[in-house]
Structure formats: structure tokens, C-alpha cells
């Protein structure tokens, strides 16, 4: 089985996120990047499927500037066979439709049986890219995947619904799945994997420009205010004013 895994490099949970002086984006130089959490699970799932069938290929694909080669290397070290790097400046790129079409362009020639992506990215959290790619490439699509069973040219996936409910769905191949964190136990790159990764191919492609329909206007840290209001009068008046303030000014009632 030929499996593509989309990985994204995102700011780590503990990373500082200083806002760039142009207020269009964060200052990327100060950010500590890591592999998106659910992508790590998606990668592990792909590697396990390949190992269980003892044949097939796992290709990682990532979009962004040069710095993302770090997570690509990490994925190769863990066992992916080769990689595609869609080289593009992603500052402020927040249009999932544009992102998905870059991926779809790079993936369509390769005829993958499965395309895995993490459920959502830990930075924007739009949870759309994998689903849109499925649509663009005419693939069966399932989101929030918790378990995968392969066999007989079809797959069965367990999806997470609300309130502790689950759903098993059968899909024909090819299919695009967005993977939920926690469905497996991701591995750590072994020393042999790290050394071997250096020899693996990373194909760098430059995408055709796509018109973005969404862009960032301005980012800023929300500022909080402290205000003290003295309420005076008789008890009844005070209660009335207090309720008025709660209801109309602070809007908590």
C-alpha cells in the first residue's frame, strides 16, 4: 500500500510567540518548532500499516519554507521512505483551500492508496486540509479516525463522534483520512533511522501560485482591562444596579 502522510511544523506548546512588529504574523525566528501532534500519530499509523503488510511505501509531504525540513527529517528518521517538500513561504497563509490545492497538485500524479493527515494543526486548528484534498482528488474521506483496519482493497475506520460515541465506516480505496491523536504509540527515531534518513530523497517542488481567499488582517494579544465601579444607594437600588451592570456591561447574566 502506498501511503502519503502530511506533516506540519508548528510552534511547540512551550514556545514563546512574540508578535512581529508588522502585526501580520509572529516573529518566526523566536519560535521553537515541533511536529504537529496528530501528524505524529498519522505517521506512526502509516508506518505500522506498512510494517504489518511488510510491503508498501510511506511518503511524507510537508508545505512551508526551508525550516520545515527538520520535521521532514524527523519523519524520515522514524521510517518514512521518502519525502516531498512543497517549498512556499507560509507567513500568514491561512487559507485551507489554497493549502489543500498545493497538496493535491503534488499528490495527484503519485496515485496514493491512502492519504493521512493529522486531525488538525496545533496552530490554526482548521481541520480542513485533509478533507478538502480528499474531495479534490476524488477520494473517499473520513475525519477523526481512531482506528484503521485494512484488507481486501477496502478499509474500515473507527470515527470518534460526540459524547463518547464511535462509528465504524467502510471506505473504498483510495481514501483520505484525518487521524485523531492517541490511536497508537508513536515511536522515537532510532540511531540507525537518524543516520539512514540522511540518504533518503527529499523532492523539493515549487507550487503554482494559487489565489488565497483568506488572509490575516492583523494579529495582536487581546488586552484585558481592570475597572472598578462603585455602586451606591439603598440595598434595593444597589441590587438593581448590580444586575443591570451584570446583564448589560459585563454580560454574564
Amino acid at each position, binding site marked *: 500500500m502506498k501511503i502519503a502522510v502530511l506533516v506540519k511544523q508548528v510552534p*511547540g*506548546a*512551550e*514556545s*514563546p510567540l512574540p508578535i512581529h512588529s508588522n502585526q501580520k504574523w509572529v516573529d518566526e525566528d*523566536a519560535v*521553537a*518548532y*515541533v511536529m504537529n501532534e496528530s501528524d505524529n500519530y498519522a505517521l506512526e499509523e502509516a508506518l505500522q500499516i506498512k510494517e504489518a503488510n511488510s510491503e508498501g511505501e510511506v511518503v511524507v509531504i510537508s508545505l512551508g519554507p526551508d525550516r520545515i525540513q527538520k520535521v521532514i527529517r524527523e519523519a524520515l528518521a*522514524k521510517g518514512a521512505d521518502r519525502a516531498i517538500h512543497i517549498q512556499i513561504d507560509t507567513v500568514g497563509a491561512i487559507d485551507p483551500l489554497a493549502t489543500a490545492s498545493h497538496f493535491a497538485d503534488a499528490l495527484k500524479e503519485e496515485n496514493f492508496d491512502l492519504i493521512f493527515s493529522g486531525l488538525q494543526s496545533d496552530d490554526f486548528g482548521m481541520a480542513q486540509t485533509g478533507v478538502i484534498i480528499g474531495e479534490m482528488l476524488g477520494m473517499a474521506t473520513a475525519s477523526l479516525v481512531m482506528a484503521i483496519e485494512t484488507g481486501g482493497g477496502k478499509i474500515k475506520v473507527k470515527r470518534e463522534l460526540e459524547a463518547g460515541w464511535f462509528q465504524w465506516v467502510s471506505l473504498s480505496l483510495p481514501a483520505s483520512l484525518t487521524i485523531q491523536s492517541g490511536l497508537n*504509540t*508513536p*515511536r*522515537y*527515531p*532510532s*540511531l*540507525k*533511522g*537518524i*543516520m539512514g534518513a540522511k540518504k533518503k530523497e527529499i523532492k523539493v517542488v515549487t507550487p503554482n501560485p494559487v489565489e488565497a481567499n483568506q488572509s490575516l488582517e492583523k494579529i495582536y494579544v487581546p488586552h484585558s482591562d481592570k475597572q472598578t465601579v462603585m455602586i451606591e444607594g439603598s440595598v434595593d437600588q444597589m441590587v438593581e444596579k448590580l444586575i443591570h451592570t451584570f446583564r448589560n456591561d459585563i454580560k454574564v447574566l
Partner: protein
Amino acid sequence: MEAHFTGIEKIVLALGISITLGSFAYEVWRRLRIVFKGHQYLPVDRFGTRIWRVIREVFLHEKVIKGRFWPGLMHALVFWGFVVFGLVTLDHFAIGFGRPLMSHSVHKLYSYIVIPFSILVLVGILALAYRRFVSRPKALGKISPTSGLVALFIAILMITYLLGETGLSPMAWRINWWIHSLVILVFMFLVPRSKHLHLVLAPLNIFFRPFQQPDHTTVNIDLEGSEDELDSMLADLTRLTKNQVLDVFSCVECGRCIDVCPANRGGGILDPKNHFILDLRQPLLDSGDVDVLGGINVEAGWECTTCQACTEVCPVGNHVEKSDEIRRLEVLVEGKVPQEYQKLFMNLQESGNTEGHTDSPLADRLPTYTPDKEYVLWLGCFARYELDPNFTKSVENFTKILEVANVSYGVLENEHCSGDPANRLGDKLTYTMLREHNMKQLAQARKVVTLCPHCALNLEKEYGKYTEINYSVMHHTQVIEQLMNEGRIEVEKGTDGKVTFHDPCNLSRMLDEVDAPRTAIRASAEEFFELEELGRNTLCCGAGGGLWWKKETQGRTHLVRAEQVVASQADTLITGCNFCFGMMNQGLKPLTPEGRSEIQVKDVADLVAENLVETTTA
């Protein structure tokens, strides 16, 4: 006693002795051959110290008695008896060939020494047999039939010896002589096939034991090297060293290592005697080779706090702990790492510290090191990133002491984690990165002082295994002691209440420092008392070996020591390690019985700073 043995008897005797000695030699040789397949050399440096160690630990039975007083003493009686009996036994067989070694009068004279000893041996062996077969402490494990047989043999040997000295009729004497001989021969046959081989190997093992504790081989990773080099390096990771193979064959299965193991005592599965030693014995014998480390129980390996209590207590000189060996295989070869540690390793790689942080308010408040200053004050991640916010106060108390004594110091701007967690958890690649980074930062340093014994151990002894170190490292309690001795600070007894001290494993066992903190505490506290397990025999707080970052598990390794402290009725607990400080702070509160005021946890620096007389120097 002038017995005349027939020719047939002499032939039978000669045959018996040859077969026994032959089989004895074969079994020992078979094991030693495997020992020599191990990598590295058996160390012989500091020869005199090694001999002295053999005298103390073998002939004087120091550790055997110290660890378990009564059984240890009984064992010593048996051992001393054996030594005395050496000559008697040689003479015994010589008599069989009609050529006694001792004249009648010498024999008689020597028997005045041997007879009391044989009675002591009898007492010893009966007491040990009672313990093993009647009271049966858990650490001894399953009943071993060979042990029963050996006890019986030793008893028979003593009885037949005593009978032989009582003036039996010639016929009875002769039968008695033969019983004694046969028992010796069968005993000799059994020894190399059982744990009783320790009779031969323990003295050797104690002689060759490495001085450093823990003593794990280095892992030299060359990311630019060839694939073949990498493969051979990785293959080496499954191989035991000569010392380690000797350990496996020397083990006497006493279970003292289990008794002291904090992971085991806290309800974990880790059983150092079996997981780190005996599980390797059969694979070694079966394969005749030493690549057996992959067989260590992985789950047990992750439970170890690397505290070295097992190694410290082992009476036959084993370096018991092998978590480093199994973890490095899991991390470097298998890539199987618990998720919490993967996160830790990622943090270390990305940010150079355990927490993935970028700023340290504490480091910002302290002066920066420049080469004109005396000490580099090494903070360590625990203090730098406030793993226990109360500990920053301890660091500041220490800097206050330095300032009062007019000692110049500064922190490194670019200090990264010393690498202790990566090193102990088996990620030798991340450890290499951190070590190389820190060596550059320390290029100009001459003296380093730190409050973290884990950092102290790594910066000096562990880094020293890889590169030459041009600076010296002191633990802050050692600097405090020095300043007190030099009269540069003055401390008065101002702290009331019952004060006790918890020896950190890394300070006591690994850095061999148990006095400096006590000097400081005695000078500051009115009422100092010791905990039951102290000094080099301290009980780990549960955080060592990277376990501070372990997810909560069912085991309660971290509570065993805290419970002891609560039971001790102390008002104040002093520690000399940031991890112990944090563990005790977390552990003591929920354990303190209602109505009793909470036990204060303090670092040695806190206690000294509180009681500093601030008029001396400055």
C-alpha cells in the same frame, strides 16, 4: 591416627580427587572463558586499594555483616572456619596417601584452633539453614535444594572432623575418614554448578570491581561515521563487559539488592537480582557468548531510579544496576520510548532544557560569569526553570552565603541541561549534543559549583569519560563546608526543633560525599538526628534516573522515603539535592497525619543562610 590405607583405597581416592578437581576446573574455566569474551579489560588500577578492599570485604566480611548483622555474622563464622580448615583438608587427603603434612604434635596443636572453629561453623551453618528453610525471608526467593545439601554437607564435615579428633577405634576412624572425604568431594563437585561458586569468584569480583559508581560504558556516537561503524557500535550495545559477566557468575542470590531497591519497595515489578543479574546467567551459559543484554526486562529497566543502592549493598561486589544498558538499547536501537520521555528528549534537543522554556527569571537576576570570577554557579534545569518554585529561594540563599564570604561567582548565559536525564534514560545522542554544547560554555571555567548533585556528577565524572575536563566541580555543600572551615562564614545554632538529613543518592553514593552537609547542619541546628537509612546506604527519593519526568504510575517509589521521614517525627528535613527537595515537598504534605504540623523541607543552603552570622568578612 596412623591409619594405613590399602592400595585400592588410595587408587579410589586418587580417582575421586581427579574427577572432582577436573570437573571443578572445567566448570570454572567454562565460565571464565565467557568472562574473557566480554569487552573492555578487567581493571587493576590502584592495586593497593583493591587489595585492601579484598581484605575488608572478603576476609573481614565488612559488607556481609554490615548489611544484615546476624546472618552476616553467621556467614562470617562459616567463612573463617573455611579458612582455618584449608590446611586441615589438605592434611586430611595427605593422610589418605600415607604422607601427612603435619606431625602428630603439630596436628594436635592446630586442632586446638580448629575445634572451636568447627563448633562456630556448626552454629553458623545451622543458624543460616534455619533462616533459609524455616523463617524464609522473601528476598532469598524460592527454596533451593542445593543450599540445603550444602548446609548438610558442611554440618557433616564439622561433625566428622570433631569425631575424628575424639580417639575412635581404628575401624570407626577409617569409616569416619571416608565419609568426610566423600562429602568434600561431592561438595567440590557442586560448588561450581551452583551459586556456591561465589566461594571462588567473589574475591576476584571484589578485587576487579570498578571504583566509579555507576559505571556504564560510554556510547560514542559519530553521526558522520560510516554505516558499518554504526552497526558495530550498535551491536556492541548488547554485549556485557568482562566485569559484568563476572558479576553474573559471582552472584550468591542473597537478594540484598532487592531489599534495598526503592522501585521494588514502592510496589514496582523491578527485581534487580533477577532482572539485572540472574536472568542473564543461563543465556550466557547457553550461548557461550556475551551478547545477552537485550534479554533484560524492559519494563523493569524503565522503573529503575539508577540510585545504586543495589550496587552499594552487594556483598560479592556486583555492579547490579543495568537500566542504562537496557534503556540505551530501547532508545538507540529500537526507538521504543515512553511518550513522556520523547517529549523530554524533544525539549532537550529543541531548547537545551528539560522543560522547553526559553527564559529563566532566576538566571536573569543573578550575575553573569566572566573569567575573572572564581566560580561558575551552575544552576541546572531544576533551579533555572523552577521545577519547584521554592527551590529558587535555596539558590538565592546559597548566593547570599557566597556574597557574605566575598566569593565571586556568576551563571553561564548559555547553560544547557547537563544531560543527566538524557544520559540516564538512554538517549546518548541527545546527551552527546548537550555535553558538547556545555563543554564549549565551560571552556574558560576553572571552578564550578552547583546545588544539583546530578549536574555535578555529569559535569565532572560523566563528561570526563568522554573528554578531558579542565575544571573542578564542587557540590555547594562542599563549598559551604570549606568556607566554614576557612572561617569565611560563621554559623550559629539557631534552628529549633528536630532536624534530620536525607542523603541524596547522587551525592552520597556517586559523589561519595556524606560529611560536608552534616558539618553544615550540625553547626546550624540544635537537635540533629539521623534517619534510619543514611549515608551511602540512603534510600532514593524516587526522582533519579529521569523518573522525575515519568508519568504517574501505580508504583509509589516516591512515597517510601517520604513515609520514613514522616515516621521519624522530624520537624525539619534537610536535603542536598533539588530533586529530593521537590520530591519531599510533594510527598510529605499528603502523608502528614492530621493535627501534626507539616514537616519543613529545606536545602542545606537554606539552613545555613538562616543561621549565618553576618558580621565576619564582607
